[in-house]
């Protein structure tokens, strides 16, 4: 049996939530004030995920960079692998919101897609 201490992000209250785990599954969630804390804590200890946002270099655009994001949330422990995969990537202008910049980033199954517009110079 093990426990994890978390801060709930559901609202400004920021409840200190304690999650008890046995064999990798949640047996208890305490400290939360509302059901949102329970849901958040269970997800966060078993399968924490994040949307990653970043930028990549653009060639031939009116801006040197375009901002990008993962098309869906990815496992938290893949954030840096995902960032590494963006090194050296160059998108050719024009870039439009939704353009796929990199498929299946770091094997997460998520694509890196443009989240900003960069017209050609």
């Amino acid at each position: 049996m093990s426990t994890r201490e978390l801060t709930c992000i559901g609202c400004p209250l920021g409840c200190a939530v304690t999650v008890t785990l046995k064999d990798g599954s949640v047996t208890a969630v305490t400290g939360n004030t509302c059901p949102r804390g329970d849901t958040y804590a269970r997800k966060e200890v078993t399968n924490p995920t994040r949307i990653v946002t970043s930028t990549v270099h653009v060639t031939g655009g009116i801006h040197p960079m375009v901002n990008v994001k993962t098309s869906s949330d990815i496992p938290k422990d893949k954030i840096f692998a995902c960032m590494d995969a963006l090194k050296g990537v160059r998108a050719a202008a024009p870039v439009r919101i939704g353009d796929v910049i990199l498929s299946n980033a770091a094997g997460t199954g998520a694509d890196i897609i443009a989240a900003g517009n960069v017209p050609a110079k």
Partner: protein
Amino acid sequence: MKYYDLVIVGGGPAGLAAAVSARDCGIEDILILERDNELGGILNQCIHNGFGLHTFKEELTGPEYAARFIDQVTERGIDCRLHTMVMDISVDTEAGSFRKKVTAMNRTDGMFEISAAAVILAMGCRERSRGALNIPGFRPAGIFSAGTAQRLVNMEGYMPGREVVILGSGDIGLIMARRMTLEGAKVKVVAELMPYSGGLKRNIVQCLDDFGIPLKLSHTVIDIEGKHRVSAVTIAEVGADRKPIPGTEERYTCDTLLLSCGLIPENELSKGAGIALSPVTSGPIVNDSLETSIEGVFACGNVLHVHDLVDYVSQEAAAAGKHAADYIRHGNKKHAKTVEIRSTDGVRYTVPKYVRPTEMSDTLTVRFRVGDVYKNCSIAVYFDDICVSRRRRPVMAPGEMEQIILEKKKLGEYPDLCSITIRIEK
């Protein structure tokens, strides 16, 4: 002199939403003046996601949120002049006191004057600088406001430093802690003067905790070293008086200090025009139509008061656009009765500050911030001495805007109403 019904100063989220709303209320003749070379304002450098949950029911990045409004402005064929700095706003005496004269400048048109029936101020805000914070020490390179660093990293693609200390736990500071970390920098500590963070819980968890970056509450920077580039920063704990406690100093070697210590509405143009400003918000004092002390000049977004969510900026700006449209078509009801909204007991200010019971819309959203963290307290609204509503809130914090709704019908039941008071009660 060029003539427009409505001139909007600023093409960020506030200006864009105001323009769309005014057009949808039937005003054809609108001009947006934007100092940057593109629309979207500060959203263009806010590449993190989390924008638009209220407006679009999905989480967008800043540029995506901006693009949706830019598309709406483009679809409506609203005139924009980019790369154009507004130099001055005044009442146009030649055209009679009702028109406003906007003086602007750009590379191609030079300096030019526009006569406008109404003006919406949407210039946004700026960050509090190191000097305004009175941080002692040297003045080398490597001290950036978080927003300047954000622009350098996100838009220009440059790294402003490798080893970073951040003062201030506002959302921009937290977001930049993660952003710099993801780009390979080492963020050593985030110091916050107050005993609580001004940022969202979500950002504290996902920008600091995820990367093991310590947040030191009740701490401030007391010294900056380095003649040409920052070489170290010393922080210390502060007492209840917010003064450093001797003996609590901690020195961090670093090459960069980022400051995220609050935003200040940018009202130099408003001051020049003679618009009355609130000493609390640093923004114009407005009535229920978001009209400033000068007839026909409206304000919305961060130039009016600093918002926590862009969704609220868009809502407020849409209201300003509608009210400006009403003004352009029907003029101003000058002699309408005005009731002051008083803020006390933890409520720092309200926007608007005045309401006209006979002129207001059916409902009016009054936004405000509290001055401290309040747990299990209520927001109470008084019409003169009578408490008309009391709403329980599990938690309120200075970093988040609060609101109450006033109903025209309800105000109509109190014909002798002198003032409305909003306060926090146990």
